[in-house]
């Protein structure tokens, strides 16, 4: 059993329980124990993209330091949390002024944070578990399903920091889908924005962005969309609801962990066959 530190984040503890629950359960089956880190705090939702902001990044530093103390890699499932944490780690490593100010704020609490190793759950599957191993554990192949992966922004960008995959032509989610026995659909809008948090102020514009993603996935023959971020899923579903046509014609949007859970037999089959 491989042990990892787990940072769930706020949304996974209320609105996106499927993301959390199935991730932990499936990891067990795949030989990974996800230990939730103690006293984690909200990551802030978005990374504050400035050279002189420190306070907004401290919760990420604490999470990193905690994982470093435990000497286990820090895993997140929510893409937004992952983005904040990974970019904070990058700043700690390469921005000397920032890391000094962090030390001034947190003292020993920040100790070792820069040595932490950070994985998104999908990276954990690819790099630690291995997609081949995953394939071997699948009991319920999602055969015949054409699944369109939705990456959105934060999983990939900025490419030079996230280093997840090619930021313009990623493959990690497609490989994941393939290992579950489903057929991945590569469509051009999979790394374009869903509208993010702007529906508070620009509802129409946000819905339009989501609709463009849905349309592109549909045009390329998708049966359903798999997302890795609660906000992406919310936006795509909102867009879907706002479009004309009945519910039966609409592309379902699910969390990738739901598909994983189905394939590994820990969730009732709904999207697979």
């Amino acid at each position, binding site marked *: 059993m491989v042990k990892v530190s787990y940072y769930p984040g706020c949304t996974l503890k209320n609105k996106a329980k499927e993301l959390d629950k199935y991730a932990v359960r499936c990891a067990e089956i795949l030989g990974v124990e996800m230990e939730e880190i103690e006293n984690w705090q909200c990551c802030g939702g978005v990374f504050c993209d400035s050279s002189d902001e420190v306070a907004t990044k401290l919760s990420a530093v604490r999470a990193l330091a905690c994982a470093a103390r435990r000497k286990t890699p820090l895993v997140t499932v929510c893409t937004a949390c992952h983005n904040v944490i990974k970019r904070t780690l990058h700043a700690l490593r390469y921005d000397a002024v920032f890391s000094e100010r962090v030390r001034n704020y947190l003292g020993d609490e920040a100790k070792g944070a820069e040595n932490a190793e950070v994985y998104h759950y999908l990276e954990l599957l690819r790099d630690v578990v291995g997609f081949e191993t995953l394939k071997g554990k699948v009991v319920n192949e999602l055969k015949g399903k054409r699944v369109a992966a939705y990456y959105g922004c934060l999983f990939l960008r900025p490419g030079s920091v996230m280093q997840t995959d*090619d*930021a*313009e032509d990623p493959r990690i989610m497609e490989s994941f889908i393939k290992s579950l026995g489903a057929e991945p659909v*590569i469509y051009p809008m999979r790394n374009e924005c869903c509208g993010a948090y702007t529906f508070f102020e620009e509802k129409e514009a946000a819905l339009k962005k989501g609709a463009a993603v849905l349309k592109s996935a549909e*045009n390329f023959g998708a049966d359903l969309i798999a997302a890795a971020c609660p906000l992406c899923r919310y936006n795509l579903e909102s867009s879907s609801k706002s479009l004309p046509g009945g519910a039966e014609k609409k592309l379902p949007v699910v969390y990738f962990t739901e598909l994983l859970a189905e394939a590994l037999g820990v969730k009732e089959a709904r999207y697979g066959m």
Partner: protein
Amino acid sequence: MFVCHCGTNIAGTVDVEAVADAMKSESGVVYSATYQYMCSQSGQDIIKKAIRDYELGGIVVCSCSPRMHEATFRKAASSVGMNPYMVEIANIREQCSWVHKNREDATSKAITLARAAVAKLKLNFPLTPGESGVTKRALVIGGGIAGIQTALDIADAGYKVDIVEKSPTIGGKMAQLDKTFPTLDCAACILTPKMVDAAQNENIRIFSYSEVESVSGYVGNFTVTVKKKARYVKEDVCTGCGLCTEKCPRKKIPSEFNLGMDNRSAVYIPFAQAVPKVAVIDSEHCMMLKENKCGVCSKVCTAGAIDYTQKDEYIEEKYGAIVVATGYEPISLERFGEYARGMSPDVITSLEFERLTSAAGPTHGKLVRPSDKMKPNTVVFVQCVGSRCEPSLGKGKEYCSKICCMYTAKHAMLTKEKYPDAEVYVFYIDVRTPGKNFDEFYRRAAEEYGVKYIKGMVGKITPDGERLNVSASDLICRKKLEIKADLVVLAAAIEPSPTARALATKLASSMDTNGFFTEAHPKLRPVESPTAGVFLSGACQGPRDIPETVAQAGAAAAKVIGLLSKERLTANPCVAVCDEEMCSGCSVCGNVCPYGAITYVEKEFRVPGGRTKARRVASVNEAVCQGCGCCAVACMSGAMELKGFMSSQIMAEVDAICRTSR
């Protein structure tokens, strides 16, 4: 002591009179003067007169970099009987006046530099250069338009020349082009006659499907081993009838010449006008070579040219001069996923567009969408894909690829000529047209042909149904554009051939950060590499178009002819010398020598007690040594020295500088 003003280049920052005055009291200096341009005829006359009048043993010229005028002053000194190696240059321009602003500091530094030069000069001794012969044969590496033109010009002057080309035919990139700018004349019509000329010229030998294996020697006397790759077809027997290519059962191999847009067979002739027009068997796909099954080509060949047992052949030849003409390749667009090249066959590169419009191309010149072979109604050209990028991002090249603006204008016009009703857009950052009739050409595309030039880079290409959605912003109208295109053509940046780096190592020739060969001087010696006897032709030195390439090819040929026409070459006397008493024969110097100039010999040495003892010591071949000094640096016992730059001389300079520094 001669202090040059260099107009205001030096005198503007350095008080040259003060330098001359200060040097008057320096021990050993008997004459000190300044002049506005020491390198001019009158400046040289001052030097010559002083040498004669004062019977000088050596001179120091405080002026520009020795790279610039050392040779000038050495020649002047030598004309009045002074050994040219008794001339020392103190560089008070590049290393002093140009880099400092404060006059006082610059003047004092100039004085220090002059003192150091005097200190060194006192230890100088006359040197006499050796001589070597010249092999009257040139090697041209690369058989594109650059290599062909260089070879033809050298051959015309009556010298033997060999072309080594890595692919099975000469012709290079130009053979793949359809029309050429700014005249729209057909590339094949002007290139193929030159290819035939090269093949028929009795002074030219073509080693096609061959590579340079190793190079040794030095200017005038290179020894080169050429690897002739096995083509499994006897070159002198094959008639190029093409029957084998028709009968070969393996036909689904993407054609290199047509950039994978159609297929060739395992035994193939790259294209109809190939030179030499000889088939070649692709060993990766031939069933006979792989599994010993088939043999059809051998059965159908009436000439009996097929030979499955052929092996790579190594040919050693001597050359007096080498010309690099390795050309360019378009960069891979893998890192530009936003342009959806992997997602749609209708997103093509400019070179692919050339094949699509060429009469000898996969569509016989019919411009159609690769996906469904339909006529494209809207064609979008995107310039600068991978050019002018911040290099640290690792996506593209820092430089401007130079040829794209013009060939894009050409492509846009060709599209309009074939389909006058088509909508043609060109997205540009800047349109760069510095060349004869270039801007007129571009304006013709916009004005006469109605090509829509839009300032702004394309952000993303989104395949949408059968068409491509091109997202861009028009920077002048401040408008977002979404254009539904049928065909998108990307002007990919160009980079040096991937074979160039290994070749540069073999030639001990330098490259810039982008992998282009460096010239000896960017303005004054543009076709010579810093390695004596190695010349540059075409895009291996930097992006360039056909007219420029041909001009440079001629210039490189002229330099080669100049070299080959000499009976003897004067060597550089500043070569390594071994103090055999100190040498331990450890082999370090031989290992670091890039020219293979150092060998080791057993020699008898006297030892205490009146006896002798044999010891291994280094021996320098002065004809091969280029005076780079690597051995002198590497030598642990201090036995290796470089004439003209002996340790004692360098230390004298350092001492002089330390004595006077504040």
